[in-house]
């Protein structure tokens, strides 16, 4: 085709001259597409692997890892690689909206109309102000992580008492335990240098957490032994030297028995334990306490032969360095006895003498960043007085860390304090994230005014009065300090690879704009001008020595500060002894157990519900947020009830046949999938599916919600069961299964 380039702006001919072409188009000198690359960082999960994005005319074409990044080490997982599909999802929330149909429900058309950000923010500010003045500060519910400094400052400035996050379905128990036993962060594991890796349910290889998967691969290459206990055979089991098909919820018994073996045979690292722990101070109590937990006793509860526990305990204590990781959803939040399990695991690490030692769990060598409050101190915040809707105030250890509680929120809103919550702000949380989402759905119906901020129309969005479209990580800036594998400090720059699509905005913007309206003095600098997110980044980069300003740091992409690893000799545990604590005396003062005791999981098989229920997060998905991603949806669009072929044969169930799975609180109907990977006394269903219809083109109506079978709880239930760390029991259920 012989094309002469012409300029439509220089022509006025014809009827088209009547319309305002230049209202929607502008002159362009560009001749051809521009291709370029930019460095940024992922944020689908918390290691935030570094990314190189290839862009054509500003549109992401390809994402890949960057060599030299301590976390991704040049790789991205499937989720990270599919990141552009979040940006360009046709279902993406594009503009602020308000509801015109007051009836709420999945079967109701909300009657959305597009509104301006100005109208959205004015309305939210006005309503929040009304509820604070007429019903108190505790009438506001913020379902959100603390998030950006400005967002946090806003919540503090309005005296938000009820900020609820999902950490109790994640790592809350381990966070509490580490504060008191080692003083360290809970997930920095030096697998690379370890010789013996002991995994209780830990499954990060199967979850494609690259930073850990690479560590396990290197450890194996270095000749390390990897032992895994779990009721399912996964990619992590495959990477292990030895795998034991343990009974669900009984890992605690085996861990307690191992501690007993190591202590009674004096196999622990004597130098470390005597010098850096409170073992000498409480030796008698500790020895007496654990003597009751023999491997023979544990065998009856766990199906792990006593001889195996004896052997592994001895190997773990004498093959140095050794490590037993705990991490997030897997094992930290599964059962009513998870707090005791992570305490026992922490003790195993202490006995191995590898806290902050090569091959063990260590303290990340980070780069401290100044927060907004340090840079521009706010005026005094209002007192946070009022009722805590989820009852967390009754769990002092959870209250101290200000995390959770998804698991008791619905009970709090419906039973403990009915009618307390008048207005709610949900930031990137959907109903599927709550244990037993049906209760949470009922709870949401009791709220008069709900705002949902998200990037796609989740189930929460469909219950909202105002919807705010959120930017994604590929559209934002930030300083990411490495904290998963950081024997020396590293910081990576996050920069927008594309301008925010449509009218999407960040939570920092919302915090600042609501702050200007409701607490202006908190959002002014000393010179009277408004706070500014870009200036915050500039100041953080400058104070941390990453660059003169953020732009300079961004242009570097990454800052490394190589330094020799000097093991710690003091351990900042709560209590101020500077030692690791095996027995935690402060726990006793706070109504908890100073040493981990055996507790069974909550729900046990019965004649009516004979099978253990298991859930898992597939490696190709992140919790309940990625099912609408085009690539990830294509790889795994739905879930199934996974059962062992032996159980299937006994019950007359064939591959793909619809089955009904029932628990004491609910039932789901779903196809069966037969697999040798699960024990014959278990039924397993993947988390993240069962989004409600109409909202999401690809994920809506596909699969079932794993949580519909899992009872939620009250704080009283937790206290009665000794769950003082607030494990949310996300798979503590037993079920029946029958063919349809």
């Amino acid at each position, binding site marked *: *085709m012989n094309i002469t*380039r*012409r*300029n*439509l*702006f220089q*022509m006025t*001919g*014809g*009827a*088209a*001259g*009547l*319309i305002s*072409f*230049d209202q*929607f*188009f*502008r*002159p*362009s*000198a*560009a001749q*051809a*597409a521009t291709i370029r690359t930019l460095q940024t960082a992922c944020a689908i999960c918390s290691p935030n692997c570094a990314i190189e994005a290839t862009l*054509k*005319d500003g*549109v*992401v074409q390809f994402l890949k890892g960057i060599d030299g990044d301590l976390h991704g080490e040049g790789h991205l997982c499937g989720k990270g690689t599919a990141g552009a*599909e979040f*940006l*360009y*999802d*046709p*279902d993406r*929330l*594009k*503009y602020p*909206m308000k509801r*015109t149909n007051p009836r709420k429900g999945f079967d109701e*058309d*909300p*009657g*959305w*109309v*597009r509104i301006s950000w100005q109208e959205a923010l004015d309305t939210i500010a006005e309503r929040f102000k009304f509820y604070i003045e007429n019903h108190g500060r505790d009438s506001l519910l913020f379902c959100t992580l603390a998030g950006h400094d400005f967002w946090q400052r806003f919540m503090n400035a309005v005296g938000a008492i009820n900020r609820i996050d999902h950490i109790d379905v994640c790592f809350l128990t381990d966070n509490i335990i580490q504060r008191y036993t080692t003083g360290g962060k809970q997930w920095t594991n030096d697998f690379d240098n370890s010789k013996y890796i002991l995994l209780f349910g830990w499954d990060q290889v199967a979850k494609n957490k690259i930073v850990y998967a690479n560590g396990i691969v290197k450890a194996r290459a270095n000749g390390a032994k990897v032992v895994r206990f779990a009721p399912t055979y996964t990619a992590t089991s495959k990477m292990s030297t030895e795998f034991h098909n343990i009974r669900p919820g009984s890992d605690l018994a085996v861990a307690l028995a191992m501690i007993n073996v190591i202590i009674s045979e004096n196999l622990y690292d004597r130098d470390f334990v005597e010098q850096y722990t409170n073992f000498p101070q409480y030796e008698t109590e500790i020895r007496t306490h654990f003597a009751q937990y023999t491997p023979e006793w544990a065998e009856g509860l766990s199906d792990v032969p006593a001889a195996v526990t004896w052997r592994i305990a001895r190997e773990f204590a004498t093959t140095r360095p050794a490590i037993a990781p705990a991490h997030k959803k897997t094992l930290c939040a599964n059962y009513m006895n998870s707090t005791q399990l992570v305490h026992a695991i922490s003790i195993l690490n202490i006995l191995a003498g590898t806290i902050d030692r090569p091959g063990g769990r260590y303290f990340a060598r980070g780069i401290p960043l100044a927060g907004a409050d340090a840079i521009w101190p706010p005026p005094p915040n209002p007192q946070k007085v009022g009722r805590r809707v989820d009852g967390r105030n009754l769990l002092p250890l959870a209250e101290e860390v200000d995390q959770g509680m998804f698991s008791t929120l619905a009970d709090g809103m419906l039973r403990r304090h009915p009618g307390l919550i008048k207005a709610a702000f949900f930031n990137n949380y959907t109903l599927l994230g709550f244990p037993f989402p049906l209760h949470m759905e009922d709870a949401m119906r009791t709220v008069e005014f709900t705002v949902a901020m998200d990037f796609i*129309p989740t189930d929460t*969005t*469909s219950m909202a009065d105002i*919807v705010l479209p959120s930017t994604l990580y590929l559209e934002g800036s930030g300083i990411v300090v490495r904290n998963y594998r950081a024997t020396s400090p590293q910081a990576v720059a996050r920069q927008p690879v*594309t*301008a925010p*699509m*449509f009218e999407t905005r960040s939570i920092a913007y919302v915090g600042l704009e609501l702050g200007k309206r409701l607490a202006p003095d908190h959002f002014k600098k000393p010179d009277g001008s408004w706070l500014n997110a870009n200036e915050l980044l500039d100041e953080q980069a400058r104070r941390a020595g990453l660059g003169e300003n953020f732009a300079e740091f961004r242009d570097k992409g990454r800052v490394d500060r190589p330094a020799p690893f000097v093991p710690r000799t003091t351990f900042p545990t709560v209590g101020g002894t500077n030692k690791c604590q095996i027995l935690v005396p402060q726990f006793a003062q706070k109504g908890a157990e100073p040493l981990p005791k055996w507790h069974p999981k909550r729900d046990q098989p019965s004649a009516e519900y004979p099978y253990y229920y298991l859930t898992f997060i597939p490696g190709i998905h992140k919790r309940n947020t990625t099912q609408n991603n*085009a690539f990830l949806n294509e790889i795994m669009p739905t879930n199934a009830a996974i059962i062992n072929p032996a159980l299937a044969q006994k019950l007359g169930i064939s591959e793909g046949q619809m089955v009904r799975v029932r628990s004491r609180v609910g039932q789901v109907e779903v196809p069966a999938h037969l697999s040798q990977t699960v024990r014959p006394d278990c039924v397993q269903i993947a988390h993240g599916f069962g989004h409600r219809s*109409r*909202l*999401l*083109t690809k994920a*809506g109506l596909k699969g079932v919600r794993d949580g519909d079978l899992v009872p939620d709880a009250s704080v009283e239930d937790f206290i009665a069961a000794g769950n003082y760390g607030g494990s949310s029991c996300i798979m503590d259920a037993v079920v029946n299964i029958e063919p349809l």
Partner: protein
Amino acid sequence: MTDRDLLAQQSALLGQAFLSSDPRRLSPPEDAAEGPFAAFRDEILLAQGVPEAAELEYTRLFISPAGAPCSPWQSAYAPEPRLMGPAHHSALEWYRRYGAEPAVENEPADHAGLLLLFFAQLAANEADDQELRAFAASHLIWMTELVSRMKTEARHPLYLSLARATEHLLASLA
């Protein structure tokens, strides 16, 4: 008015209608005596009296977070629906060849409204029929699917008549 002028005028009107949720921003054609464009003109005049209902329907059809049934972007009709797909890049190439780019940078260039407005400008100014036909084949014909969805989904007469008028234009290009 020449055929080209009429084509340009009609395309421009449709383009604006796809881009504006408020019917008061539309200038209805004065000389459409009969047919789908006359019906469309009448519906615009009626909708301008009660714009709220039309705005609600615009949101529901094209941008609703509760699952817009009639996505206005060409890339959403590809075998693998995705915003900013090949159709976006191809549209951008066309615009640039004629010295233009969409005024809003952070939205896809293959919006039905932008494509129709550009086509209108092309019809009014570009002598080469081949060019017009090539652009229509690449960036207008897909709208038969959009129109068909609108005819099923639309609850407001303005958008039913927009669908019929667009269908009429597409038929005249075939």
